[in-house]
């Protein structure tokens, strides 16, 4: 079946000729009309629309956005904060970058609609440190929006006031984790907080109720208010509504970002048609579907899933629709939408060694299983590649990984052990054969991964 057309809602103006990131251009394209519509609606009505829309967070966990907002403690008498997660640090993910650089007002409008709906008077955009231009563009855009009365005191002639400030990170992946991010925003080391009791919706920034949402999620909010929650819910597939941006990188002919209705395109259509298939003379070997932390899939494997009526169906990787629920049923996740593709030139031990070096570098060090485990997984895979490898190393790696997940304050524990667990489970043969593989390889132009 031919791949469907892209449905560009969030990326409508990305790379469009003549579109610039200033306020005048945004307003010319209908910008801030939805904020005007929003401030004429009761806040609770907006939250209802977002609930009806079925929007799920685009930052990684896919948590219901309306549900998240309804968990906010509104009786505490404390201010409610919105924190925009623009840390974009999950390897394989590169979508928020384009919104921030090319269409910052779309984000600002989404933020202001969200703030109005949740009675937030202060929002912070936490942008990763390695996007200095992005931070400047956002500051400039906020200043423009403030001058035009879309942000700041008494917006659009109402009695409602709300400020947005930009806060820069400084190169630590763990700041993408929402409670680590909050600690960082408080000026501390980003050690994630334990939940319970520190659910951001109750005890977040400055121990006040706080909403943390991803950049793309907040852009969707704007369009939900525009078209209404019910209409938005018709886009995509049930329980996996709307569009989402898929970021494809690695070994395909046309890597890049593509926006599709959730679940309307399969992995096979995405990789073979949209991205042009494997590089010349190569075959796909493996794919990580939702950012580096999601579990890897091996081309050739099949998944037998239960249908609602009790019957079952069998899918190949190519058959998997790119939605949250099917990917989860296949033992992995939609995560952040970062699809990393590897072809048959890649040795899986070496690819894992690359990722293990990332996680060992990024563990915050707070929990012993994660700090020590991520380091040992890195040491083992690096030794396998650069010194002596043993046939039983796969099992050793698995035993380390199995002692991390579920034993840490935050989900980094899962994030760092899932690659090792899934690589060893799916490519155990390659781990066993690695000592032999090394003896036979000529070490000439081989792709270096670690």
């Amino acid at each position, binding site marked *: 079946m031919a791949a469907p057309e892209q449905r560009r809602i969030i990326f409508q103006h990305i790379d469009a000729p003549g579109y610039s990131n200033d306020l005048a251009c945004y307003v010319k394209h209908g910008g801030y009309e939805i904020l005007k519509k929003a401030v004429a609606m009761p806040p609770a009505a907006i939250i209802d629309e977002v609930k009806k829309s079925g929007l799920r967070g685009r930052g990684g966990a896919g948590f219901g956005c309306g549900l998240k907002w309804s968990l906010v403690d509104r009786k505490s008498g404390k201010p409610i904060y919105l924190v925009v997660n623009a840390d974009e640090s999950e390897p394989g993910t590169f979508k928020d970058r384009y919104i921030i650089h090319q269409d910052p007002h779309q984000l600002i409008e989404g933020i202001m609609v969200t703030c109005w709906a949740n009675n937030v008077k202060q929002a912070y955009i936490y942008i990763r440190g*390695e996007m200095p231009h992005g931070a400047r563009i956002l500051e400039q855009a906020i200043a423009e929006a403030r001058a035009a009365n879309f942000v700041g005191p008494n917006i659009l002639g109402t009695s409602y006031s709300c400020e947005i400030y930009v806060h820069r990170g*400084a190169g630590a992946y763990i700041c993408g984790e929402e409670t680590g991010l909050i600690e960082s925003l408080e000026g*501390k080391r980003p050690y994630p907080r334990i939940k319970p009791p520190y659910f951001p919706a109750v005890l977040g920034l400055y121990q006040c109720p706080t909403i943390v949402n991803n950049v793309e999620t907040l852009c969707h909010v704007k369009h939900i208010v525009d078209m209404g929650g019910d209409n938005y819910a018709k886009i995509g597939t049930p329980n996996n509504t709307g569009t989402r941006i898929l*970021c494809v990188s*690695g070994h395909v002919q046309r890597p890049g970002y593509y926006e599709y209705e959730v679940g309307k395109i399969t992995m096979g259509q995405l990789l073979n048609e949209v991205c042009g298939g494997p590089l010349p003379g190569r075959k796909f070997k493996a794919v990580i579907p939702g950012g580096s932390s999601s579990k890897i899939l091996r081309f050739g494997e099949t998944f037998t899933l239960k249908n609602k009526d009790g019957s079952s169906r069998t899918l190949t990787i190519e058959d998997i629709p790119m939605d949250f629920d099917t990917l989860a049923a296949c033992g992995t996740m939609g995560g952040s939408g970062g699809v990393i593709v590897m072809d048959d030139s890649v040795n899986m031990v070496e690819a894992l060694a690359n990722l293990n070096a990332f996680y060992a*570098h990024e563990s915050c060090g707070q929990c012993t299983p994660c700090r020590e485990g991520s380091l040992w997984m890195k040491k083992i895979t690096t030794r396998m590649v650069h010194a002596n490898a043993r046939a039983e190393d796969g099992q050793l790696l698995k035993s380390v990984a199995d002692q991390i997940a579920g034993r840490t304050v935050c989900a980094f524990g899962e994030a760092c052990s899932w690659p090792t667990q899934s690589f060893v489970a799916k490519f155990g043969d390659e781990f066993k054969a690695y000592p032999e593989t090394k003896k036979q390889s000529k070490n000439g132009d081989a792709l270096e*991964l670690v």
Partner: protein
Amino acid sequence: MNLKPATLQRIDELITHYPVKRSAVLMLLHAIQEDVGYISDPAIEWVAAKLELQPINVYEVVTFYPMFRRQPIGRRHIKVCRTLSCALMGGYKTCETFEKEFNTHAGPTEVSPDGEVTVEFVECLASCGTAPVVMIDDELHEKVDCAKAKQLSDQIKTEAKKR
């Protein structure tokens, strides 16, 4: 501490963004590092005094976040992405090219013998679709294969000569 008037002004403005002064630590450190190149002991004490904190509160931040550095580095900062998508497209070779061109080793505090560059191998820069990617100072460069790395190195050398 000898900060430019514009930096001092920016710092005073930044502090007003937060109901709790301590929150401004990262933004102040960025402002200072952009002005003077690194975070010295006096800078740590200055920030602590400015935000009514103990120096340890600032020190623990500086030593955690990879982007803050305790000593000066090369005049130009070359960050090559090391993570998987870039590595799959030859990122390790790209890094090697820069190392060779400037006769240095990648490392957060290594400086080339001429003092011109620091080459650092960093983690994912969120531009994996245009791998391998490199940041030179604040500028992102995409699809930097060995040939392009050589070209960028030549450019840096030419700019250095003009100085």
